[in-house]
């Protein structure tokens, strides 16, 4: 897919370009907020990746201008700052996701994919289906091959997120943020503990294992 990258630090920009191209994306890179507005307003990008802190008009200002001009392209903010303040400001300016530097390559790629795929599954979709696994978002019930599976609330939320992003890699951080609203890195295996219980209920005894571990990146639900 086609991605616009705004990053003023040359080394970082080159690194990110290489990373995104290696993952099969087409990248237009720029170093100033003005360029980002000019390029971004064309509207033919799948995702915008904006560094928050660039000299002159920063990423925040550029995104505000783009949103004001009616550009709805999903945007991911990059920042070296770690304050909650920054994230809230970014989201208020119209960003769809937020990633603190430094980050693993897999984290960035997973988030870019998740952003680009965002529109297809609307909130109005009430039933999620992957292979023989079905989740009813209204009744909060899960069945696999017609067999009812009892899940705890947080396990169900976890499975729901995996199914909404079926076929994509979701990282631990994405799960922490979206399932538990934790915007920090826990020291213990919160994700692993829940994932092993979810797998025991959803995958064990059904033959095909739907939840895959992607080494060094996260998890993926595949049909």
């Amino acid at each position: 897919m086609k991605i616009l990258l705004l990053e003023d630090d040359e080394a970082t920009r080159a690194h990110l370009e290489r990373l995104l191209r290696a993952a099969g994306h087409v990248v237009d890179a720029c170093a100033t907020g003005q360029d980002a507005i000019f390029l971004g307003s064309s509207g033919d990008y799948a995702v915008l990746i904006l560094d928050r802190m660039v000299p002159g008009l920063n990423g925040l200002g550029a995104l505000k201008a783009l949103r004001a001009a009616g550009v709805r392209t999903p945007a991911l903010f990059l920042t070296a700052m770690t304050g909650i303040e920054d994230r809230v400001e970014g989201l208020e300016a119209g960003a769809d996701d937020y990633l603190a530097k430094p980050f693993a390559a897999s984290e960035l790629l997973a988030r870019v994919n998740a952003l680009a795929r965002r529109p297809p599954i609307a909130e109005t979709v009430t039933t999620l289906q992957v292979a023989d696994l079905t989740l009813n978002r209204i009744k909060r019930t899960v069945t696999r091959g017609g067999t009812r599976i009892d899940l705890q609330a947080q396990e169900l939320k976890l499975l729901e997120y995996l199914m909404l992003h079926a076929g994509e890699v979701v990282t631990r951080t994405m799960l922490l943020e979206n399932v538990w609203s934790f915007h920090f890195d826990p020291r213990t295996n919160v994700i692993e503990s829940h994932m092993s219980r979810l797998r025991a209920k959803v995958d064990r005894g059904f033959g095909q294992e739907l939840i895959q571990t992607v080494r060094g990146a996260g998890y993926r639900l595949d049909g």
Partner: protein
Amino acid sequence: MADALRSAPIRSAAFRFALLLGLVFAVGAAALLLVVQQQIDGYAREATDGGLRAEAAILKGEYAQLGLSGLTDAMDRRRELGEEAQFRYLLSDAAGRRLYGDLPGEAARPGWNTIEVIEENATSETMTSLGTRLPDGLLLVIATDNFDVRNMRDRLLRFTLLSGVGIALFAVLGGYLTGRLFLRRLDRVNLAVDRIIEGDRSERLPMIGFGPEFDALARNLNRMLDRNTAAMEALRQVSTDIAHDLRTPLTRLHQRLEQMRESEPIDPAMVDEALGQTDEILATFQALLRIGTAEGGVGRQRFRSVDLSELMDRIHLAYEPVAEDAEHGLTADHQAGVVVNGDPELLAQLLTNLIENAIVHTPLGTRIVSRLYHRDGRPIVEISDDGPGVPVHEREKIFRRFYRLDVSRSTKGTGLGLALVAAIAALHRAELDTPDERTGFSVRLTFPDLYPGQ
């Protein structure tokens, strides 16, 4: 040197106040003198005029009853009093000839007049005279001197001047002495300030005295100094600790990178390890930044009502399987509907830090309880365990940055978890303490009453 104040008492504020007071007294005395003099003048004039009028009436009566001889007899009787005689007289006939009396001829005028009389000893005296027409064309002039009134006025003037000058002198002297006293006390304070400026951080201001308000000022300034000293000490300690704490992971990273240069092909496990080291360093910086912003009070303006019951339930559900996997028991006893004013993300971080600490730093089989309740209208959070506990003398220290109990040195972590807890608690104005447990360890957070007075 703060020597601007160490000058003559004559320039002190106390002296200036005294001078001002002296001036006010002087003006007051002058005004008083003026008013009193006016009153006395009025009174004296009334007394003199009344006397003259009465005397004239009496003598008029004598003349009417006893004729001219009766009148002169009456005046003779009065003159026989000599020095004590109150009045002097002049009686003239219709042609203006003197019949009786020793007042000068020009005094022979009817009505009220002021006349100058030359005495035998050549002194001049001002007198008030009243001329009255008698039947048969006679004119009787009675005069009395103003000596008593003038005398009184003079004495009063002297008294007022003397007391005015005296009061002013006392004020100046008092001001000088008070000024000296003030300066001497303040000099001690200034000397203490000098020593503090020159780097003696343990120096404190002496009590100024004079009154509770001055001592309260000195005490407040000392409290400010205590706080600043503590903050500076903490800052110095933190920079030392950061340098110290980061040396280990940086050294390991350095070693890994050197090993990687030697090895061919590069072992991915080594790269992972090096990345792990950088993550550790970054985690330390991230935690330090968060502590810094929380301590700086950043984010308080974004505070809102947080359903602490819901938040703690959510965290409990998140950590129940973690505790189970680590073979710990985690139970929750949360009162429903407890609300605090705060930042939900920071509160979540605080609570998870406490629960993770309890899981990581206690042996298998330890039971952890997460409690939430109200006491006296204040929401209280308590995370306790029945593990080996923390020695009492170390309980204060564990909330410092990089402080680690000897037993937990080997466990992974930044040593900043509880420091962040303390910073977030302080940001929420929640009191943090470690109640004495018979067994294990407990951290308690007492939030401020959200609706005081209800």
